């Protein structure tokens, strides 16, 4: 898409509200609106590919629970829509941290994924992990319970951040095929629009669980695909960066020369399906960049060989994290890459990662970043 006539709109969810950042195709000057829903946690906002002015936002609070907001004008005016996420049937139990059975309890919506073709259809990934759908623009939500009911649900266990369904990827060539990921159960795929699911974790290896190569029990942090090649998946696991060339049926490690293969986000360049991005983070438990240097790593070979991208990023005394939903790419000719930090910065690169600028510096901790490329 040409840069002269285009605009981009960043949708930024934070611990204390949502922000909408807009720029022209040069992506050098940004207008910032917000905070919307001030004081509430905004885990995620996303626009409909079928109607870019239709936006959905997940607004939640430890006091007042879950609210879903919808905008029909690109984020200027918002209306609350339905917020009832009721598990289908008797919810049953999953494993608690101590291994005991714990009833499924709805806590919040982590991720909203609008349908590729219908602005009124949206999928929601929630905590405790389940997959919901609305077909009426968010007024009502129904669980597609085949995911929890496929058999392994009672053995799922929460990660440190809760048992969340955080990633939803729709195959553009076959919308009946959807990939999801759950911490700490793993990745799953449906080929029938969400009725039935299978775990797709073969090749993942997780030390510290009884069977390191178990069918479920892996802490997948994020998966990503390029729309032109939806059988190729990239994964940032708790540890390990992984790749699948068969729609998740098998995985192999492509961490290569990364300084640490722990991290949260992973994304794919808009025009180069073998160019991928991660943000290596020091762990266990520190969860900040190694050596205080914030570096995005880019591979142009689909993994295994990585280069550090540092131009414009802080290279000393930087101890922020980048969360799993806080990276996005636009689809302009020169692909823009964006990410937000727990320190409240949003960084943008208009040239695929070669040069970075902080386009805003002092927001609340950033939970999610999405970008819309508008003509």
């Amino acid at each position: 898409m040409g840069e002269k006539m285009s605009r981009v709109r960043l949708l930024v969810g934070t611990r204390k509200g949502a922000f909408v950042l807009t720029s022209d195709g040069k992506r050098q000057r940004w207008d910032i609106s917000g905070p919307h829903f001030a004081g509430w946690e905004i885990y995620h906002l996303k626009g409909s590919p079928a109607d870019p002015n239709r936006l959905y936002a997940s607004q939640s609070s430890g006091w007042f629970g879950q609210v879903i907001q919808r905008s029909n004008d690109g984020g200027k005016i918002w209306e609350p829509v339905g917020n009832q996420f009721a598990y289908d049937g008797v919810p049953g139990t999953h494993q608690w941290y101590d291994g005991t059975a714990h009833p499924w309890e709805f806590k919040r919506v982590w991720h909203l994924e609008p349908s590729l073709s219908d602005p009124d259809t949206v999928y929601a990934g929630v905590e405790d992990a389940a997959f919901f759908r609305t077909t009426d623009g968010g007024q009502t939500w129904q669980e597609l319970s085949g995911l929890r009911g496929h058999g392994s649900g009672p053995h799922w266990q929460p990660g440190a951040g809760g048992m969340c369904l955080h990633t939803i990827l729709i195959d553009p060539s076959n919308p009946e095929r959807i990939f999801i990921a759950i911490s700490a159960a793993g990745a799953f795929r449906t080929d029938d629009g969400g009725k039935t699911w299978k775990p797709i974790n073969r090749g993942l290896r997780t030390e510290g669980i009884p069977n390191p190569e178990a069918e479920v029990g892996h802490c997948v942090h994020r998966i990503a695909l390029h729309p032109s090649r939806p059988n190729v998946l990239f994964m940032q696991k708790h540890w390990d960066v992984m790749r699948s060339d068969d729609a998740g049926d098998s995985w192999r490690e492509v961490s290569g020369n990364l300084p640490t293969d722990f991290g949260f986000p992973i994304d794919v360049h808009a025009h180069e399906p073998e160019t991928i991005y991660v943000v290596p983070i020091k762990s266990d438990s520190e969860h900040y960049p190694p050596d205080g240097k914030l570096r995005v790593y880019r591979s142009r070979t689909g993994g295994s060989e990585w280069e550090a991208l540092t131009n414009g990023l802080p290279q000393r005394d930087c101890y922020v994290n980048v969360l799993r939903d806080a990276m996005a790419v636009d689809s302009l000719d020169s692909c823009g890459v964006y990410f937000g930090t727990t320190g409240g910065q949003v960084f943008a690169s208009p040239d695929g990662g070669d040069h970075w600028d902080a386009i805003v510096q002092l927001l609340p901790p950033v939970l999610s970043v999405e970008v819309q490329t508008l003509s």
Partner: protein
Amino acid sequence: MIRVLLPYHLRTLARVDGEVTIEVEGQATQRSVLDALEARYPTLRGTMRDHVTQQRRPFVRFFACEQDLSHESPDAPLPELVATGAEPFLVVGAIAGG
């Protein structure tokens, strides 16, 4: 007429300023007041009590007449001063968190 004072974030969500007043048919109880409140402001459904179980959310409290009514039965009559509109029914967000 029942006077209800909502916490700041719920006033914002319901798009109201200050106290709201509602009419309750029959006896004024927590349940009848919250039912009437949610009927008038549907966006408040699920924010004070669970959609299904109707249990009070843990960090939401109900006060009136300098009493904490949070642990009273939802079907217990509210104080007469609330039922007559002399005193407001307070929905309070517990002071906690960051």
